[in-house]
């Protein structure tokens, strides 16, 4: 393990002050991704600023019918919270589809948003990687790219964002509350993660001197018609090849509102608002769902080992929307896909 200093933040202002004073420092909360990256010599912070004791562990109802989730709420507490289970079951389901019980007990809400790709080459310091070492090249492009992006990739990077929770947060149009030296601001979830372009070393639009303090859910939770369908190489405790967060509001058999977000296919949770808009007013049937799948995947492009993910995504989208429409969401323990 590398040599680093350790300090605790006493409050949010102190955390922001400490990180501004030492740009090579990093915040640590759950640590479940950062410590791993430090062991692999990918992340080499000069100092860890421990924010895990800050009072950001509440889940509170907001005035407009939504929920405000403190950045330090552990993933397991969030997934099993009564209000999340009842009003945002899509989010609960997505969280339980990710990681293991032990990791969910430690991993924080804010940290989940900031976890880094599990691209093999990002993790292997012996290979080029533009995300880890800007300008060194992308070994994944012509390497083993089974897990990699089919949408929104660039010449520089074909990595995917690994989170399940974030796919649901994207579908639910969450807002990310952050604090920095200039005060607080709110980042819409769609703007929080970014596409790689020619700066894949930047995963998000969070500035180096900012800290996530909360994630806010709007009132609309799609609790009746939703499904989180995750397809992976083993039944549990594996990252997604393709994941689909599907949410519908129906009026009899007509789609009133649709949300569709994909995980495991891009550098960020993938949504296409125009596709969702086009679904409104359509009948909630297989033909409509297939049209939506074709539309959201219209620019999909595979590489040597992951072209199968395009057809896999198409089928997973149709299946997840069908499950959502029927009110029979995918179980995260009984793995049979119906």
């Amino acid at each position, binding site marked *: *393990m*590398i*040599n*680093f*200093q*350790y300090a605790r933040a006493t409050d949010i202002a102190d955390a922001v002050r400490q990180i501004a004073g030492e740009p*090579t420092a990093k915040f*640590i909360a759950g*640590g*479940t991704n950062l*410590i*791993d990256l*430090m*062991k692999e*010599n990918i992340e*080499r912070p*000069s*100092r*860890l600023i*421990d924010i*895990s004791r800050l009072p950001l562990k509440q889940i509170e109802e907001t005035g407009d019918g939504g929920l405000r989730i403190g950045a330090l709420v552990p993933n*397991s507490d969030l997934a*099993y919270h009564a209000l999340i289970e009842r009003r945002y079951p899509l989010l609960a389901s997505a969280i339980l589809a990710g*990681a*293991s*019980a*032990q*990791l969910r*007990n*430690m991993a924080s809400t804010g940290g989940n948003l900031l976890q880094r790709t599990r691209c093999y080459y990002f993790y292997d310091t012996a290979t080029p990687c533009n995300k880890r070492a800007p300008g060194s090249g992308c070994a994944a492009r012509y390497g083993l790219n089974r897990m990699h992006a089919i949408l929104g990739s660039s010449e520089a990077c074909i990595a995917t964002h690994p989170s399940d929770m974030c796919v649901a947060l994207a579908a639910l149009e969450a807002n990310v509350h952050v604090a920095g030296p200039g005060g607080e601001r709110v980042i819409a979830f769609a703007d929080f993660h970014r596409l790689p372009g020619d700066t894949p070393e930047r995963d998000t639009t969070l500035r180096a001197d900012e800290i996530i303090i909360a994630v806010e859910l709007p009132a609309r939770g799609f609790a009746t018609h939703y499904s989180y369908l995750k397809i992976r190489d083993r*039944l*549990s*405790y594996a990252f997604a090849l393709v994941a689909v967060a599907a949410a519908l509001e129906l009026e009899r058999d007509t789609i009133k509102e649709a949300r569709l977000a994909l995980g495991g296919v891009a550098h960020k949770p993938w949504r296409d608002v125009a596709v969702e808009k086009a679904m409104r007013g359509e009948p909630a049937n297989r033909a409509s769902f297939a049209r939506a799948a074709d539309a959201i995947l219209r620019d999909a492009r595979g590489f040597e080992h992951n072209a199968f993910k395009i057809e896999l995504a198409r089928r997973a989208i149709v299946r997840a929307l069908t499950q959502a429409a029927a009110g029979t969401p995918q*179980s*995260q*323990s*009984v*793995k049979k896909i119906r």
Partner: protein
Amino acid sequence: MAPTIRKRPNGQTIPAPAKIPVSLTVNGVPREIVVAPWVTLLDALRERLGLTGTKKGCDHGQCGACTVLLDGRRINSCMTFAVMQDGAKVTTVEGLARDGALHPVQQAFIDHDAFQCGACTPGQICSAVGLIAEGRANSVEEIRELMSGNICRCGAYPNIVAAIRQAMERERP
């Protein structure tokens, strides 16, 4: 004495960190240690406190062999630093038996022959104790899913699930 300056691979120099005192209650016993910031809870338990029941498998949070209970919740002890857990209560496999009697989960693992080589077993048992306390597993499928963070390369899974079911049923009123 001025702190030592250590050079890092990128040429940056930072002072050697002071070792930090940490208080833990481990298996009910208060323990004081002084550790560098990079010492994981796992290494603190094994190397500093001599509690080698908790195993280091992958050291990357992928296998679950290092599972302990931290303030009653199961976690991977390889994925947290000891300095972050100052003041915490830790239960390892050594702390589960009561008055010379095995914990019901330990006894169930023996009854069901739920291990071969035993390397994953302390982590499996601590994880199962955490699982039962969570109260979220009510079927074989749920036990399997919620134990998926514990890998057994001997493949004793069917017997592990049977052992957990037994322990779970005995704990129910």
